[in-house]
């Protein structure tokens, strides 16, 4: 065998031995929002510390991502090593054995530091199945100048009646100032997120203990009637088409007196680069009726059981949801940009408290959320602004269309509730409830 031939064979052998070490690529599916994009930008510190791991990002719009990832995981396609999922999916997917349990995350990970309501929503039998990247609840963001002009003072947690009264007093239609902006666009994650939280606060429930839909109850009627009435009197025109983004644009351009929505919005409306009212925003806890309106959402990183690289994936998840990651973000972009709502230590940090004026309200909102007891009556499901069953996405969106039609004036509140009851009964019977 010639020298050259031997050298060639040797090079091939070295390459073959080295290839598995060099070629571990993690494909990460994530959503397009500010915190996730920042994570993509910050990953160089992870890849420098782990040169044997390469990262491939797949960023998609939330609903596209949900459908795409569900298809892949359900068919065990193995296209993703890490997926971004919400706390709605985690218990359902964990029950299907679609996610790997997150054990042995390293000594420095400190899983005990995760906020208890968030950890509870991501666990099954005490085992964490997804690591929270950021968490959110709902709060009232309001214009302090308009509230003062209306001669009112916002309580720490107002009642629904106070909110409705303030909305009517703050409205100045000739000057395009609308007292209240709420979600009206149909969808289980759009208007139904707000309306489910509001109705729970009124003492309504989606289902009774036998999984019978409850839209024919008096509490739902009161909640929906109040919502439609206040939006007609004090809401912006075309509110039935408004979701999070539309309301954000309205609030940032000074057209909303109050906006009740996810706490993540606080960092947008208080940013002077994008918001014309950044210096006039106050924050309060979500309103209360018979119970405080609850809302709990967490974007998490989970590892599908179909992954070929579970150890490398766990390493990345531990890095991206660690305390050290929060410090890296703080050093690069400031404490106000650290992903909120997941760790107790962040809210104990005086630098964060100073940089994020909405920190305490966010923490209080998250801590008051009780996934198992969202309303005054006993319910067979978990969930605050959603219902933790696989059928909820379809039923929630269809019911949301009825309620959006009521807001647009295409149906009365009674007609919308009657239709919602029929739809929910039909779909639950088809799905085989009670199970």
């Amino acid at each position: 065998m010639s020298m050259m031939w031997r050298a060639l064979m040797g090079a091939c052998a070295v390459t073959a031995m080295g290839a598995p070490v060099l070629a571990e690529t993690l494909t990460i599916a994530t959503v397009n929002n500010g915190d996730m994009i920042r994570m993509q930008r910050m990953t160089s510190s992870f890849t420098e510390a782990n040169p044997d791991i390469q990262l491939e990002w797949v960023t998609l719009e939330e609903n596209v991502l949900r459908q795409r990832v569900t298809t892949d995981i359900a068919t065990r396609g193995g296209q993703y090593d890490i997926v971004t999922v919400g706390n709605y999916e985690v218990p359902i997917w964990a029950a299907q054995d679609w996610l790997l349990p997150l054990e042995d995350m390293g000594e420095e990970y400190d899983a005990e530091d995760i906020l208890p309501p968030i950890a509870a929503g991501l666990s099954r039998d005490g085992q964490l199945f997804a690591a929270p990247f950021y968490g959110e609840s709902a709060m009232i963001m309001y214009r302090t100048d308009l509230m003062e002009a209306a001669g009112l003072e916002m309580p720490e947690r107002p009642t629904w009646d106070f909110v409705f009264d303030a909305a009517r007093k703050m409205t100045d239609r000739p000057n395009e100032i609308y007292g209240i902006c709420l979600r009206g666009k149909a969808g289980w994650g759009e208007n139904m997120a707000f309306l489910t939280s509001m109705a729970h606060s009124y003492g309504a429930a989606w289902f009774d203990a036998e999984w019978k839909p409850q839209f024919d109850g008096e509490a739902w009627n009161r909640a929906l009637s109040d919502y439609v009435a206040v939006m007609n009197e004090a809401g912006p025109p075309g509110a039935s088409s408004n979701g999070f983004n539309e309301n954000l644009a309205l609030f940032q351009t000074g057209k909303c007196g109050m906006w009740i929505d996810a706490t993540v919005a606080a960092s947008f409306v208080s940013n002077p680069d994008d918001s014309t009212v950044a210096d006039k925003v106050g924050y309060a806890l979500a309103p209360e009726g018979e119970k405080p309106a609850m809302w709990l959402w967490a974007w998490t990183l989970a590892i599908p059981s179909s992954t070929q690289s579970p150890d490398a994936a766990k390493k990345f998840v531990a890095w991206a949801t660690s305390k050290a990651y929060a410090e890296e973000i703080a050093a690069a972009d400031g404490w106000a940009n650290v992903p909120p709502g997941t760790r107790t230590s962040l809210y104990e940090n005086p630098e964060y408290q100073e940089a994020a004026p909405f920190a305490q309200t966010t923490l209080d909102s998250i801590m008051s959320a009780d996934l198992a007891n969202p309303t005054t009556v006993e319910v067979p499901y978990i969930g605050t602004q959603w219902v933790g069953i696989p059928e909820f996405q379809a039923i929630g969106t269809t019911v949301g269309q009825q309620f959006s039609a009521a807001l647009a004036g295409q149906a009365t509140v009674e007609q919308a509730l009657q239709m919602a009851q029929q739809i929910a009964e039909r779909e639950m019977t088809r799905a085989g409830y009670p199970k």
Partner: protein
Amino acid sequence: MARNVSETRRWTVTFIAWGIALVIFFPILWTILTSFKSEADAIASPPKFLFFDWTTRNYSEVQARSPYFRHFSNSVVISIGSTLLGLLIAIPAAWSMAFQPAKRTKDLLMWMLSTKMMPAAGVLIPIYLLFRSWGLLDTRLGITVVLMLINLPIITWMLYTYFREIPGEILEAARMDGASLKNEILYVLTPMAVPGIASTLLLNVILAWNEAFWTLNLTTSQAAPLTTFIASYSSPEGLFYAKLSAASTMAIAPILILGWFSQKQLVRGLTFGAVK
């Protein structure tokens, strides 16, 4: 007087035509303008049309965040590949249907077209499972074959319509002169149908370029075309309209330029046989 009337009529028609063209083009124009705005200007009320602080920052941010050229090359390979593959199958198929029709040819054509009416989501899971078994998920080959199959009915229908315009006697004469079937299609039929084939090719490249359902569902990163590139900038929680517009402009620019230079062929393709 007659001349005045015709002059007025000409100006009116021109004015209306430009008005309609502007209305149709306005969403694209607005997307391009928004791509040069800051996020705050993108949502300004009342909207800012031309007088805003022009910036190319969105383009540089999009460029820094996404591998645009990988998505672009995937789009080129997938759209052209699927169209050429489709033509390879559709030309002989359309020839046989146009010049050797059988009793059920019309039914066959209608059946082919009816497959376009089936909701794509209905066959997603079976195709996904097949792709997983064959190792075709996130490959250019896999998505090219799927797009070819999806557009095959349209390619066949268009070519069938063009071939029907060609007198069968010419092909008969070629056969009398001893041309084989292959030579008849290659050297007689195809050259006469070049304008029709070109229109079909262009239209199907555009259809494949814009296809979003299958490309989003069967590709992940390596074979992902520009449709997934745009989808990565859409967000229900966060105002990224300026960046989304920049990504959209970058995605539609190549096909817009192609359409501009080939508009004659496209118009001919879309109106062929409309007036007889």
